[in-house]
């Protein structure tokens, strides 16, 4: 299965069943497997993320999308397999080190720091990982944080606490906090769930802008809604393994994918 994308020389990002090499892309997953007790949540999954693409990572509920993310970002190590980031084996590296390497994520369930304002949530992400830092003393951090808030559309709500934000606002905060870490690759976990049509559009526009500025994105969703016009390429997984890969239209019409979604979610 080889599909062209509008991002150039993708030759064998996913060549014959999961033989990937570390340099296939910015992020490469090689036979990633994650078991919880007896449950195989991710089943020897291999794929690569090309630089500056927007990759859709699609699958029904419980397919293993978030678990794959968690293995990549170092929230927990995979049971087996290798993760390469920028060509380097980063399997099992802890989460904050991955962030420092330029890989950020948002939480599907939104995890803002409830005890502080939007601005302070973002400021924290600008804090250096050093013991004695007085950076906050100079007020520069605050300026930068405010800029990021504006960027993600929270300019007028910087001084609110997360519990005052609507659903879409919380997503924007997740994005803002992740962007504040200056990522090269951003994993966005199910941003569109619970958003209205216009909100989906406005977030999509933001993500596209970010890509144009050089960011690479992986966007998770359990259906194609909102993804069609956003992604360059998609990967569909079910029960932790890949069942389809290609451009949005091709995925949509893929018989295996349609079968996977039969009776369940709408694709």
């Amino acid at each position, binding site marked *: 299965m080889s599909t062209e994308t509008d991002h150039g020389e993708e030759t064998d990002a996913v060549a014959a069943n999961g033989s990937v090499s570390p340099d296939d892309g910015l992020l490469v997953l090689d036979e990633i497997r994650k078991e919880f007790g007896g449950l195989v949540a991710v089943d020897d999954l291999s794929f690569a993320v090309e630089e500056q693409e927007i990759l859709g990572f699609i699958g029904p509920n419980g397919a293993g999308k978030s678990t794959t993310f968690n293995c990549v970002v170092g929230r927990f190590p995979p049971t087996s397999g290798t993760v390469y980031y920028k060509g380097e084996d980063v399997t099992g590296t802890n989460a904050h080190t991955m962030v420092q390497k330029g890989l950020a994520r948002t939480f599907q369930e939104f995890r803002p*720091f409830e005890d502080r304002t939007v601005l302070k949530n973002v400021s924290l992400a600008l*804090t250096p990982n050093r013991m004695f830092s007085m950076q906050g003393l100079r007020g520069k951090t605050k300026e930068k944080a405010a800029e990021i808030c504006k960027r993600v559309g929270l300019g007028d709500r910087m001084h609110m606490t997360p519990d005052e934000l609507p659903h879409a606002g919380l997503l924007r905060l997740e994005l803002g*906090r992740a962007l504040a870490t200056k990522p090269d690759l951003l994993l966005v976990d199910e941003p569109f769930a619970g958003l209205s049509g216009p909100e989906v559009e406005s977030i999509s526009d933001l993500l596209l802008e970010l890509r144009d500025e050089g960011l690479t994105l992986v966007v998770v969703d359990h259906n194609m809604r909102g993804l069609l016009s956003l992604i360059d390429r998609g990967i569909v997984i079910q029960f932790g393994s890949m069942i389809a890969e290609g451009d949005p239209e091709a995925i949509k019409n893929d018989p295996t994918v349609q079968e996977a979604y039969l009776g369940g979610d709408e694709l």
Partner: protein
Amino acid sequence: MSDNDSTQTTGVLGRLNPITMPLRYKLGLVGLVLLGALPMFIDSTMALTFAGAYFFGVYAMSWDVVSGYTGQISFGHGLFFGVGGYTSALLNLGHGFDPLLSIPVGVVMAALAGIIIGVPALRLKGPYLSLVTLVAPLILVQIFIYRSDIFNGEQGLSGVDPLFGLNTFGDEAMFYYVAFGLFVFVLAVLWIVTRTDAGPVFTAIREDEDAVEAVGLSPAKFKIMAFVLSAAIGGLAGAMIVHTPNGNASPTTLLSITVNVEVIIAAILGGMGTIVGAAIGGVALILLRDQLSAVDLVVPLFDTPISDMDFLVFTLITFVLLFALPGGIIRWATGIGGWLTQRVRGEDPEIAADGGTKTPPEQVYENYTEELREILGGDDDDEH
């Protein structure tokens, strides 16, 4: 200092400008100045009581910076006071070190103890960590009893040199200033640490460690830092107090269960995770106890004088206040103060600005119940 901010003053330094500083800081500074002048108006017994209160305020602050801020609850902070105090006393007694030399060594030893407790804290979930901190001082006391030849058991070590060669009788006012100086110094250090970058990271750890990781900060690093800082300051207070009439290197002064628990009570009462609250809570608790001891009332049912039941009284007060003012006295006072100033200025006071947000004790309680549920099983969630 060039603050170019329109709405609120930027950064910590901005807040310290005496003209623009918020009312509560002004009040605090006035309070400190008054306390500085206090020895002129009180007798020597009272001066020593206050000195003891300042030491306790430092204990409470040292607890607060790790437990109040990061939510890693220590039930045995006396361990650090004890390590500091015994180290300094032993060096002074056995090797003739001047207190000015033995106290820093006590601080270093306490900081090491902070690492010893802090490192397991990286792996242990809250409830397990609390168990470790609960047991550690008990073990230390047992060692002190077992090796009574060195540590003189329950009695502890006495006859150490007083600080600066002061006289136990006659120099009470000086001891007041020693304790007061320590109190102000620690208050300043911890205030700066918690109001610069580290403070928000500490409290974020209390809120959600995974989210802290997700913004590229190492919770482990900051937890260790909090433990070591806390232990060093606790050790400093412990090491200093044994060279004053306020205490000696004994389990009762430094690491009894009563000390361990009262430190927590003081910090929670004053306002967990604020430093200032812990400072006030610690001082108030000792002064209150002093007042209680003067009350000649005998509690009928138990047939004991109320002065012997201070511990019980504090525990009761804590429970009542935890329900009435879960944020502690200082948050309550700042809240009221902010509301009042807004009223006075004719602004519309914001109703319950911290409406849906949990107070630190509530957040910690929630973390603990969640972790306990995980530990005790129930679901097979074996993630980390």
